């Protein structure tokens, strides 16, 4: 990255704290973000065995408030958000009319205020914050709700790993053991107001904590001093890929549907009414999808990467969307779209790497699942 490029990039309120730790910075969707501190494998390992923390303040954060927010957002997603009680959250996708994924995101329901207004928090990908805002606003009745973009007004820190709750508890007043996975609450973080959720993007237990920037900086310093390992986007990518979590813009995008992407578990056709893209998903559910996003395990040392072609019987049949060497498993793993008849576990395929074909096998997702 040249200095002139860097000057155009946005920085989070934790930028200088990351630099103090000798973070190696990279451009990520318009932001200058830490890609690694002391090494991707080391950071990855810290999250799998103890606790790591990520500055994810670049992610988009919206607050929706109004009397009929639920009714309106139900039209944007295939998941039945009416199932959510106050304090619960749902990972889901915004869909376009072709059932392509506009973005993947989490809706957090905070219940009603004293005047009967529903309060929702929405956290979306950094790269798609503007796009999502435009999309959502164009499909919501803004006369009936307040749509607040609080992306820049808050820091967001992910604390992830089997020891995450123990470390974070020292700085949070509320009892974290009462927060269930995908549960959330308005919490007191270092005597200041904050919002925290038991969510993450690593396949481990953990929390994401939203606060004002000053509190966020103090929390970062406190966690660091307590021994939580700072982690960059490099480890975030290997961790999420081992957990087979999709990366927007790579594994899923405007042209892939949730049924193709293996996100059928968040499509609730039976329990909810109409939503954008519903008719396409009904048809796909009935007829079956043409292609599916599968897990691949390479049979040798070669590493499949984003964009590499996938072959069956010597013919190109699909493409790798994400691939890496798995630090936990010590093997090369990948996600790829392949035709449905070739998508079952144990299916033998090949990946073209620098002009040669190397064997791969379809395996069940996720590649890594934490011990309960």
């Amino acid at each position, binding site marked *: 990255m040249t200095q002139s490029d860097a000057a155009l990039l946005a920085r989070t309120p934790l930028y200088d704290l990351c630099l103090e730790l000798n973070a190696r910075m990279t451009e990520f969707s318009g932001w200058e973000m830490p890609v690694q501190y002391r090494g991707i494998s080391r950071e990855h390992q810290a999250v799998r065995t103890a606790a790591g923390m990520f500055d994810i303040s670049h992610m988009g954060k919206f607050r929706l408030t109004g009397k009929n927010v639920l009714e309106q957002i139900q039209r944007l997603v295939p998941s039945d958000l009416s199932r959510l009680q106050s304090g619960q959250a749902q990972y889901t996708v915004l869909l376009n009319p072709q059932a392509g994924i506009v973005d993947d995101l989490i809706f957090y329901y905070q219940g009603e205020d004293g005047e009967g207004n529903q309060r929702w928090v929405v956290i979306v990908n950094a790269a798609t914050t503007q796009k999502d805002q435009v999309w959502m606003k164009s499909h919501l009745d803004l006369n009936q709700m307040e749509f607040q973009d609080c992306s820049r007004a808050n820091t967001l820190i992910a604390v992830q790993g089997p020891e995450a709750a123990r470390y974070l508890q020292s700085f949070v007043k509320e009892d974290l053991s009462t927060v269930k996975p995908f549960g959330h609450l308005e919490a007191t973080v270092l005597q200041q107001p904050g919002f925290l959720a038991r969510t993450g993007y690593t396949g481990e237990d953990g929390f994401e904590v939203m606060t004002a920037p000053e509190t966020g900086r103090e929390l970062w310093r406190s966690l660091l001093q307590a021994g939580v390992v700072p982690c960059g986007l490099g480890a975030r990518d290997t961790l999420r890929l081992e957990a087979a979590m999709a990366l927007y813009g790579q594994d899923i995008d405007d042209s892939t549907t949730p049924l193709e992407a293996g996100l059928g578990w968040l499509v609730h056709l039976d329990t909810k009414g109409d939503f954008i893209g519903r008719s396409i998903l009904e048809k796909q559910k009935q007829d079956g999808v043409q292609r599916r996003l599968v897990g691949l395990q390479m049979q040798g040392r070669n590493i499949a990467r984003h964009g590499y072609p996938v072959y069956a019987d010597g013919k190109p049949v699909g493409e790798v969307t994400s691939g890496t060497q798995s*630090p936990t498993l010590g093997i090369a793993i990948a996600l790829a779209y392949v035709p449905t008849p070739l998508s079952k576990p144990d299916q033998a395929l090949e990946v073209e790497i620098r002009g040669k074909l190397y064997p791969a096998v379809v395996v069940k997702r996720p590649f890594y699942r934490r011990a309960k």
Partner: protein
Amino acid sequence: MAFEYPDDLKYLDSHEYARLDGEIATIGITAFAVDQLGDIVFLELPEVGDAVEKGEKFGTVESVKAVEDLNSPVTGTVVECNTPLIDAPEQLADDPYGEGWLIKVRVDDPGELDDALSASEYQEQVEGG
């Protein structure tokens, strides 16, 4: 950060080095390259008897995040490959100028390395003036 750049080596700005001993050049990547790459997880090297050409790709090194070409500083024939390293590529980082060498090449023209970078020229290039 300070890295070691041995004076008896010649360097390419693409971060490979060559140590010439008679007509045999030992080729590897520099400590700076190793640091930039991060955890090295994959190596692809040519076979003994393969021809390599100055400035052309002879192999691939991959870290968790990056895929980089390995470029040859010399033209000649591969006479030895550090094959144990292919099964343990992470060990390259421990000793890039010693045990972490990649290939040995019988060079067609030892004079070919005269215009490669010296240690101080390479250091200036990567660390800036």
